[in-house]
């Protein structure tokens, strides 16, 4: 009885404490991701320089006041290119994660709900997909369907899908027999409604954090493919492509590769830190 009253008096306090400002690292990470999102939506806010404007006499300028992060072999401003590249990099990361998740949810739901035989067959299919390291799976896809941004997104998504599918399946199995599912069944809800309204949201909640980090990982994998020359075509301000182009000048002009890579690192780092912070926040609700 005393416990109950104690809980009642403590509950609002706890909630208040949860809403305090996140720690320094997480704040910085969230700030960086917000700035990146803003750059993706409105690059004009950060720079007025055209990312594609070629100025031959400004080629290979080291970082300076006029060109914060220097210029590349054609005199294009690297800061402007990175800012304008944010949209494409984020888009690729989010789209690839979405594709990976769509495949994973389909496979995970089917194998979690389709009965033992379907589960075994899909488990086997996953095992087969797992036999390929992600970049090899993505390269295989690019070899069959050609390079470019579209195949790049699908290839990155495909590379990540088996891992997510295994997680979704585990979650579906864990949630499948929960009390609220039984309650919904007892109330006579159709299966489709139970799956969409009860099962999926509850199975997905713990995966949200993984998804946040997944976007960062997808950006890295996609840039790796772009770096190998299998993604966005060179003049486009895509981070992996910029890095790849700068590689030829690495001996004399380090800023060509250093800064695009730095932004990839910062983005991954920010998604990881944010994801981990969210995980801690949600921990009480995790199974």
């Amino acid at each position, binding site marked *: 009885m005393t416990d109950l009253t104690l809980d009642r008096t403590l509950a609002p306090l706890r909630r208040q404490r949860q809403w305090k400002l996140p720690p320094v690292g997480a704040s910085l990470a969230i700030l960086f991701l917000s700035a990146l999102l803003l750059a993706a939506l409105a690059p004009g806010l950060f720079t007025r320089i055209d990312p594609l404007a070629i100025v031959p006499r400004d080629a290979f300028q080291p970082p300076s006041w006029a060109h914060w992060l220097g210029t590349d072999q054609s005199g294009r401003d690297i800061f402007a290119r990175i800012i304008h590249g944010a949209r494409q990099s984020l888009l690729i990361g989010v789209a690839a994660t979405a594709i990976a998740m769509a495949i994973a949810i389909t496979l995970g739901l089917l194998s979690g709900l389709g009965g033992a035989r379907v589960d075994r067959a899909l488990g086997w299919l996953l095992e087969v997909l797992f*036999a*390929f*390291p992600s970049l090899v799976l993505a*390269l295989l896809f690019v070899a069959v369907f050609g390079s470019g941004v579209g195949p790049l997104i699908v290839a990155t998504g495909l590379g990540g899908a088996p891992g997510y599918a295994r997680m979704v399946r585990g979650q579906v199995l864990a949630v499948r027999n929960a009390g609220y599912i039984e309650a919904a069944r007892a109330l006579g809800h159709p299966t489709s409604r139970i799956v969409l309204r009860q099962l999926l949201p509850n199975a997905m909640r713990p995966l949200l954090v993984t998804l946040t980090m997944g976007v960062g990982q997808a950006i890295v994998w996609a840039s790796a493919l772009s770096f190998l020359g299998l993604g966005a075509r060179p003049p486009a301000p895509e981070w992996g492509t910029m*890095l790849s182009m700068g590689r030829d000048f690495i001996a004399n002009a380090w800023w060509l590769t250093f800064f695009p890579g730095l932004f990839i690192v910062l983005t991954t780092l920010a998604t990881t830190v944010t994801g981990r912070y969210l995980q801690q926040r949600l921990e009480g609700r995790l199974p």
Partner: protein
Amino acid sequence: MSTTTPAVIDPRRERLVALGRRAAIRLGGGVLVLWAVATLTFFALRLMPGDPVLAILGGPSANPTPEAIEAARVEFGLDKPLAVQYLFYLGRLLQGDLGVSYSQHLPVTRVLVEQGGATLELTIAALALAWLLVLLLTVVTAGRGRVVGGIASLAETLSAALPHFWLGVVLLAVFAFGLRWFPPAGSDSVASLVLPAFSLAIPLAGFIAQVTRESLELTLEQPFVLTARTRGLSDLAVRFRHALRHALLPGVSLSGWAIGALISGAVVCEVIFSRKGIGRQLYQAVQAQDMPLVIGISLVVAAGYVLANILVDLLYQWIDPRQQEAAA
């Protein structure tokens, strides 16, 4: 299990037998997966546009006579129904025949034999280096208070976020072009292995160290650690001889995944450092649309990956006998 076996049996031998049984089961499963992989790639190849005979006779650039095409069609059994062709394909695979690369005009098997060693060398060096870094970093710093832990954990998170390709390029700029300590390219000397191995190992070490630190910190709070300390063991001895074995488990189970990440990273690193190896071959084959080579390398990589995962699984059982009892 232990209740039914007589006490005279040596427990160590019993463990080995159980481990052997487990290995046989896993190997059987692995063979099944590889068969599925091979089947999948066979039908993927058949779905590809273009005549497979032309591919065999030297790719799109070759210009064979109609007689040569007909002869090759009969020789490779391509005039037979698909099911028969599939059996032929499996038969050739079992004999180690993966077809002919049409960008290099060499049997795929020969390319693999010539290049595989370099990749194996690189991935093993990187894995060993990564574990060395993990052990140094975690065993020394775990449970040493907030400041040390915070700094180490920051270093781990940061290194886990470093993409191989960027790290490789930065290492190249600093240590090969700037300081000239190591050669920028090639694969002939031990010195040329250092930079690629580090650029593969550092991000991996970051990942493994995060898990290992967490589990080591939990382990150090266990009663048996206190027992060891009361027996007068030094701090390092407690950490290395008692705590480590428990704390290694999550890291070891991550190593299976790590091998996949290493192979993916090897592709990138071999390209950056112009190293010999099947990763760079795969990259070049994709660019040249050389399907036999792409498929051959993918198959072998898949086989290696499956095998490595089985080994990791067995290692895991060996380190933690509790797993074995749970499985038995």
